[in-house]
């Protein structure tokens, strides 16, 4: 009797849930466009997302809600797991997502090599995989990211324009992340860092490859930067500019500069974290290259739904009007070939980053990345940037 009762209750709950999902209103344009993408969907689509960690603010604040709402607006179901910085945990997570019935997998890989067994399982099960923001070296995947080479290029262009000659410090991220070791430095070189080092205009104070930061930890970057400042002072050299790869390391650099009362040489970062945008407004960080993660989440949601409907990777096309035109792929809305550092060719959507300096901070407020109050906290009204006036 009890079992029958329970079954009935479950069934009612399931129907109610189903009704709710199908009735979710496509309020925003993005949602309605996504809904039209999935309009032809026969069976319901389950999108399984494996996040590597929520240690960095952006995943939970922007990527996940947009991905989720785009999938749900298109009639799909969103399931996810957080591997909490462990590549082993991530393998288990992917197993769980597959057994929960995921039709498409979105993977934010903790480690681009350790994830390969999970990818093989997905392939064996015939499940298409989207490599979200971090590359996985395999021809079968769809790579969805911001152009990280362009991010590095935007960081270095801003700093090199501000400080064309002098002593530079390079702070890189986790040595196991290809963004840290390959793409961002490539962008720095494309912006002219390499040539200026060769010509002698720029001297690298902490070695040609800079100082790496385990797991992009702020405290680690802070301790490293303090040692670098001490060394520069001991050698009688002045630090003129600092290229930091991302915001969590840039935050550590600012803390070190503050502790040493060194002043604030032009410093780069990326991610558009609120604490860092506040530092840009305060004049402690010169540029923060902002990847509008809302748009990346939307793009991933739309691509996942299309893959669910059986669209081949080569024929994928992002719906027009889904993405902000300044962020949408420079190469157009159709999937493009992307050659990985190892020479593998994969299909990809590569979105464009937005460099933010004190002059262009309004963009961050407009993208709802930060509130005006948080952005302008502690800013002296006399020297406030335009966005704080």
């Amino acid at each position, binding site marked *: 009797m009890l079992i029958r009762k329970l079954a009935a209750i479950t069934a009612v709950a399931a129907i109610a849930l189903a009704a709710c999902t199908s009735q979710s209103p496509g309020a925003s344009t993005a949602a309605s466009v996504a809904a039209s993408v999935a309009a032809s969907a026969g069976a319901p689509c389950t999108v399984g997302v494996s996040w590597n960690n929520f240690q960095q603010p952006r995943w939970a604040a922007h990527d996940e809600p947009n991905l989720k709402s785009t999938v749900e607006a298109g009639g799909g179901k969103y399931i996810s797991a957080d591997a909490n910085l462990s590549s082993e945990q991530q393998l288990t997570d992917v197993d769980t997502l597959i057994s929960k019935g995921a039709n498409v997998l979105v993977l934010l890989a903790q480690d681009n090599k350790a994830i390969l067994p999970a990818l093989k399982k997905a392939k064996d099960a015939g499940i298409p995989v989207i490599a979200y923001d971090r590359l996985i070296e395999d021809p079968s995947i769809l790579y969805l990211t911001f152009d990280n080479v362009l991010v590095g290029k935007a960081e270095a262009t801003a700093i090199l324009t501000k400080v064309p000659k002098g002593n530079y410090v390079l702070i890189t991220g986790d040595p196991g992340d290809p963004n840290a070791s390959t793409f961002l430095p490539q962008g720095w070189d494309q912006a002219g860092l390499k040539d200026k080092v060769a010509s002698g205009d720029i001297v690298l104070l902490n070695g040609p490859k800079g100082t790496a930061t385990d797991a992009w930890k*702020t405290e680690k970057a802070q*301790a490293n930067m303090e040692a670098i400042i001490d060394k520069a002072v001991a050698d009688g050299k002045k630090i003129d500019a600092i290229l930091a790869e991302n915001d969590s390391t840039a935050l550590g650099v600012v*803390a070190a500069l503050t*502790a040493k009362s060194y002043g604030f040489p032009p410093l780069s970062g990326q991610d558009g974290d609120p604490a860092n945008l506040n530092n840009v407004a305060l004049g402690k960080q010169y540029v923060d290259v902002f990847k509008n993660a809302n748009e990346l989440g939307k793009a991933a949601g739309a691509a996942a739904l299309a893959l669910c409907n059986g669209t081949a990777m080569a024929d994928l096309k992002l719906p027009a009007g889904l993405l902000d035109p300044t962020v949408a792929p420079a190469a157009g809305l159709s999937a493009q070939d992307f050659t990985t550092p190892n020479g593998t060719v994969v299909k990809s959507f590569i979105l464009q980053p937005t460099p933010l300096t004190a002059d262009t901070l309004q963009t961050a407020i407009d993208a709802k990345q930060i509130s005006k109050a948080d952005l302008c*906290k502690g800013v002296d009204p006399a020297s406030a940037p335009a966005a704080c006036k």
Partner: protein
Amino acid sequence: MTNVADATPVSSEVKPPARTSFRSLLAQTEVDLRLFGMLVALAAILLTFNVLSGGTFFRPTNMVTLAVQATGVAIIATGMVMVIVSRNIDLSVGSVVGVVAMTYALLMTDWMPNVLGMGVDFPFRWVIALGLGVGLGAAIGALQGFIIAYVGVPSFIVTLGGLLSIRGVVWYLSSGAAVSGLDDSFQLIGGGAQGSIGGTATWILGIVACLPIIALLISGRRQRRRYGFPVRPVWAEALLGVIGCGAVLGLAAFANANLWPQGLANRYAAEHGIPIPAGGLHISTGLPYPIILLVGVTLVMTWMATRRRFGRYVYAYGGNPDAAELAGINTRWTILKTYVLMGVLCALAAAIAAARLNGSTLDVGSGYELYVIAAAVVGGTSFAGGIGTIPGAVLGAFVMQSLAYGLSFMGVNSPGQNVVAGIVLILAVGFDSFNRRRGS
């Protein structure tokens, strides 16, 4: 520096040393050989880096940076000694530091002004924040300690659970965002040029610290004579006094040789209308607050471990749990207290970390458990229980941090630093157990 366990009454007659080797002379001063060896090792590490860097390493500024970087781990290590001595472990310290650091940051940027109605101008906000943080640390410690001591779940499991779940709480507190913008007064806890007591105060502190050293030596000698314990030769007493005072005053002079950065000094001069002399304005920073906090914690913890009933109970339980129980010691209450103490120390370390960052991020404190346990173990704490000293653990923290800072200074990347730290840990403990075996 002698341990309680070592202070067993022997015959009242002072036996003359059989031969005057360096070892026996050292024995007469009753200096802890293990501590002495670690000081030598620390000096050797610093000197090696100084040679490798061409003489630029051993400068006051660098040494102060190194010391400040070591304070957080060193403070927690003093508590970890008590925990390991009583045959337990605490893996949750890094996460506790994270949750308390995030609490400080949120208190000052959000909860105090928006919930508690304490605006930026509210008096003593930093004291209130610190008090609440220490309270939170103690509460977490008490909960974990209760489960370990009274429910009987192994400490490894309880604190491993703490490591995971408390780190998760940090995420929920700020929804994953970094929080920054602490009160100026709170930031002083983190050190830096302004977070230091200045040149004059450092000299005064040095001289004041010298007096108790001499007083302790004299009263100790009197006490020993009264109860018929062997006394040190007069030359050894004098030598200890001179070395102790010399070390304190030398450190004060060294800290005072650390000057304000020129830019800051010039700005200060301009604001206060002080003329800048030809050679530039020299303002001594003196001792930073975090180091003073560490010295205070070390003294209080050493006093608790060696002079208070609580400390004796901890060592007694660690030496032989059954005997301690049968002797009528309330062992469960003692264990619970070690974890409360640990929580308080984590909250102090969190204050330093948050003040140094001027805020908090999700990863503050992550990995501390390993550095803290390494510091305690390098400092001579034994996992067999009953053995370990507070100053040893502090020195252990300095040994580990001087390696990390020195390698960083030389431009060695963090994977290289980790390799060296791991090898040193094994070498230190291996050397120690070799010595113990030979000694017994």
